[in-house]
């Protein structure tokens, strides 16, 4: 009876027939997916097939347009929520490329983020203690809390900083977008430990990664594979090993699904920034 009640109270993220476009190109072409609290769902797929798009769309990234479908979180319409409301509802996205935000102090930002999820602001002492412990656990020097948000951080530091935020904000569901890229072996262990701690608390995870190494450490409960903007395979952890050793060709041969090639977009160009730094040594003119 108590197990049934627990099941009824369990948080669920339910995505139905989701279609998402970016710059007039349809990327997700009808995604159906559900994730329960306590589950760790591994999302795999070739580059450019929509994994990051799905995570960004769930969080409400304005660069993506939802053209059809629904996302419900505990029966609440996620698509009707603003981005900050989605966070307050319990969703968290650890980004593949976290923004460097000039001028925004890391600890001021973290204080604002933590307090946004509380009715009463945290006392300074409580905040300082919590912050110090989190930095220590993530192996990040505490002095970095005084630096501008992600500015000048290495790739690995940025990723650890994402997990640090996840720990401090304490969401119900965390969406991790290639959190293991740019991490060395030690940092990977720290990140995996942090994820395991949250798994024990019953948090739900949707984890995108290309590598079996992270998945081996966090032991996903289910695995789905996204091809051509749709979920085409669903199953257990054995799928990760299969993909790790043989790639995605078997999906074509066994299921007859043609895998579209990834078309890399042009790099973004930033106009309006001008900087020169020249040093000329030698004889005067």
């Amino acid at each position, binding site marked *: 009876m108590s197990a049934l009640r627990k099941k009824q109270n369990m948080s669920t993220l339910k995505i139905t027939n989701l279609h998402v476009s970016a710059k007039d190109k349809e990327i997700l072409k009808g995604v159906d997916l559900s994730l329960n609290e306590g589950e760790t769902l591994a999302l795999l797929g070739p580059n450019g097939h929509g994994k990051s798009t799905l995570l960004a769309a769930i969080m409400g990234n*304005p660069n993506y347009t939802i053209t059809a479908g629904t996302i419900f979180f505990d029966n609440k319409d996620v698509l009707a929520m603003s*981005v900050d409301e989605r966070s307050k509802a319990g969703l968290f996205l650890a980004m593949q490329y976290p923004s460097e*935000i000039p001028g925004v102090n890391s600890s*001021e930002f973290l204080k*604002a983020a933590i307090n946004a999820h509380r009715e009463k602001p945290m006392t300074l002492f409580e905040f300082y203690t919590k912050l110090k412990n989190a930095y220590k656990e993530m192996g990040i020097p505490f002095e970095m809390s005084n630096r501008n948000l992600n500015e000048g951080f290495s790739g690995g530091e940025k990723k650890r900083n994402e997990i640090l935020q996840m720990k401090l*904000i304490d969401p119900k569901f965390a969406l991790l977008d290639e959190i293991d890229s740019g991490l060395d072996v030690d940092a990977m262990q720290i990140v995996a430990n942090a994820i395991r701690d949250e798994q024990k608390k019953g948090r739900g995870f949707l984890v995108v990664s290309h590598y079996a190494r992270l998945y081996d450490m966090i032991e996903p409960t289910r695995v789905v594979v996204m091809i051509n903007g749709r979920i085409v395979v669903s199953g257990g952890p054995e799928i990760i090993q299969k993909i790790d050793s043989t790639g995605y060709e078997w999906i074509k041969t066994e299921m007859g699904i043609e895998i579209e090639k990834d078309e890399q977009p042009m790099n973004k160009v930033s106009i309006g*920034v001008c900087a*020169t*730094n020249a040093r000329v040594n030698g004889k005067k003119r």
Partner: protein
Amino acid sequence: MEKSDDNMNITLIDEQIKNMELVVPNGESLVLNLAAFKGFPNTSISVKVQSNASFNGAFADFSSGSGKFIINVDLIGDGSRCDWHLSSLANDVDRKIFDTSVTHNAKNTEAEMSNYGITQGSSHLTFTGISSIKNGSIKTITRQVAKIIVFDPLSDGKCSPILKIDENDVEASHAAIVGRLNEDHLFYLLSRGISLNAARRLITLGYLKPVEQYFNDEKLIERIDASIEEGI
């Protein structure tokens, strides 16, 4: 003309900011703190810095109105230095122009000029200025940074820093950025539960608050803090 004493600190607020010519004598240093909270100071200040002397200027501008503020720093002595930091908030229908220039007229001179601004409402903010290195001013280093963030659709900003270099053996750099709130930055902050207003506040603090570190008077720093909060 006002002549500075040893390691002189000058703090000028609102109408105290007037046209003036300052000289920093050999080996000495001058700290000039300016703060405007009422009307925009239409003012021209010139500073001559002699050998191994330094000029450290900072201006916190929260005034309203329109006009042009000019500061010209002339590094006339070998080994002289100039540090200039401005934070300006333009609101409503303000039309503010800041012309901040430095001239390197001697060897081993160094200058850092940084101007940060935020425009709101229908205001306009312009940062101009010339970093000029004269012939013979070898081993000179000059840096010039101008950044304006445009908050509202009717507000606007313009940065046009200029480098004029007539010497080879120097280091010179300039950076100018004018932009609206970056969507990716905003999404990042919002995705952590921070509201749009709180996100704007964090970004505004990041642009305007750093100037405080160049001020000496604690009460004045508190007043600048209050103006930043009020401006947000």
